[in-house]
């Protein structure tokens, strides 16, 4: 018995080896820059370059300190930047969920005039890359009116530049989110609304009490895709670079600009980019299943 099993298991384990070897090589390829970043953030510039010729570049050895991190706090108002990014990300995501889900719901399950037209608009904007409208969008937001408050008296203001709203409001609506919501709502069983109507619930209550609780997966998907892929949330860079000049309103990614200089302090750069990467990595590791699921379901629509 043992003799007949042995060759089989050996063959299998050598087969395994042949998949583990390329998989591990690939893993090294995907991990080495990130490991290097984290390790280098703890070293002085002198040591980073001294260690570059050996595997020490990836090992936390030698004189380690948080000096680079302390220097980052001296150079940029880190907590302010982080707070701005978190606030903008939260607002874009939260309002996006409300606005896009209601629009998707109206398109998927209600009959009203203009529905076909709106659906056409949503589909048309699906393939419109954000970059093609960015220049006129800057011009537009520079001239949009807004009602501000001076104490309690409302004041008509012009221009959205240098505000939080310019970082939030243009990015709430998203054609792909609307599309994902509409697809999901279409798959819900027919007759839900009729059953609710018999109980005397209006449209808003039906939506809020029945549809939303049944649709948690699509809400999670859209929230995650918004945070990971929107040009205005965690990764916002080009847009705030163009529209926000004052330091108090800047998000974390724009903060990298403070480190561009002739004689770059690479240890500080590594510390800063570690600081703006780790929060997202931790969130990802905690909610990994939901992340993977969201991206997978985004690809299943065709």
């Amino acid at each position: 018995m043992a003799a007949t099993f042995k060759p089989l298991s050996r063959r299998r384990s050598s087969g395994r080896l042949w998949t583990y070897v390329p998989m591990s090589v690939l893993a090294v390829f995907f991990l080495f820059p990130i490991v290097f970043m984290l390790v280098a953030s703890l070293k002085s510039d002198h040591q980073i370059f001294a260690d570059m010729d050996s595997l020490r570049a990836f090992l936390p050895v030698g004189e380690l300190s948080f000096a680079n991190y302390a220097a980052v706090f001296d150079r940029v108002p880190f907590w302010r930047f982080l707070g701005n990014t978190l606030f903008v990300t939260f607002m874009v995501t939260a309002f996006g969920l409300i606005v896009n889900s209601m629009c998707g719901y109206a398109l998927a399950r209600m009959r009203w005039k203009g529905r076909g037209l709106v659906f056409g608009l949503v589909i048309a904007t699906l393939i419109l890359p954000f970059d093609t409208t960015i220049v006129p969008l800057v011009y537009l937001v520079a001239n949009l009116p807004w009602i501000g408050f001076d104490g309690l008296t409302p004041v008509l203001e012009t221009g959205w530049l240098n505000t939080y709203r310019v970082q939030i409001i243009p990015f709430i609506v998203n054609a792909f989110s609307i599309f994902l919501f509409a697809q999901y709502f279409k798959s819900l069983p027919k007759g839900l609304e009729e059953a609710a109507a018999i109980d005397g619930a209006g449209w808003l209550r039906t939506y809020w009490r029945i549809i939303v609780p049944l649709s948690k997966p699509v809400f999670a998907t859209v929230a995650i895709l918004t945070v990971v892929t929107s040009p205005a949330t965690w990764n916002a860079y080009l847009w705030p670079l163009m529209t926000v000049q004052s330091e108090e309103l800047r998000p974390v990614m724009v903060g990298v600009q403070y480190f561009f200089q002739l004689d770059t302090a690479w240890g500080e750069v590594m510390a800063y980019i570690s600081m703006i990467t780790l929060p997202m990595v931790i969130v990802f590791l905690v909610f990994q299943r939901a992340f993977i699921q969201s991206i997978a379901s985004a690809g299943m629509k065709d």
Partner: protein
Amino acid sequence: MPIPVSSRSAPPAGAGRPAAAPARPAPAAARRRRSHSRTEQRAGAAFAAPGVVLLLVFVIGPAVVSLVLAFTNARLVSPTPPEFIGLDNFERAFTEDAAFHRSLLNTFVFAAVVVPLQGGLGLVLALLVNQRLAGRNIFRTVYFLPVITSMVVVSLLWRFLYQEDGLVNSGLSMITGGAWAGQAWLANPSTAMGAIVVMSVWQGVGFHMIIWLAGLQTIPEEVYEAGALDGTTPWQRFRHLTLPLLKPTFVFVLITITIAAMSLFVQVNIMTGGGPVGSTSTLVLQIVQKGFQQQQMGYGAALSLVFFCVVLALALVQRRLTRDRD
């Protein structure tokens, strides 16, 4: 909008609907349906309104404005109103603007390399982590990690790795036993774009691995069992069973990578600024430089329109090609 019945005669939505049994059921039912569909009309429009307004103001509006500005000499800040100049912007772009020509070519080359590379490597990774193996989730997480890392961060990080005294050179020199003479990858016109290709694929491929994986997992196990019984090799099973069944995923992967590749900007902006000597300049970089930094809004809009037409044409061609193959 004409409303068929006076709104006052309508009962409040939902209220008193199945109340007392009506004396004449048929007309009551008809009235109920009508009022229901009218509240549905209004509720539907109201539900969609915020999204539609935002879409019109911040997406469609700027797109239309861009379309109009493309035929004018508008500037971002200007004392004189913009004038209609016909096709002058396009003429300038296609006949005079060498930087634009170079950028157009660079963008196409980048897409032509990245699309098969990232799509193919994504599929390979998906096939690897789709096996029943101990630790496959760890590998999946590792391959996906760069996607979570912002492109801004990745660009800065790799800029350092690509330096003459950076990690890429020291690694190559270690592997070749010191034979490799280091070079500054991003400062050399013949290697800068290749360097950006490698780091772009490194950052983005995990995303498409997940998309491929989702496609693979929709293929039922029985398909393979049937295939295995016929004595086929794994390659034949992959070629004749897996690949055809992955076609919808293939179309999605193809189009999304193409659009992302054509929009190449952040990496270039942070790593090279389009240099050296224009070797990494791209369409979007030109749009931002001309339209925003140099404030030539009309010209920037014209370039945007060219960019949009190119992306649209590519998407349509890809759809057509993948459809006809049936």
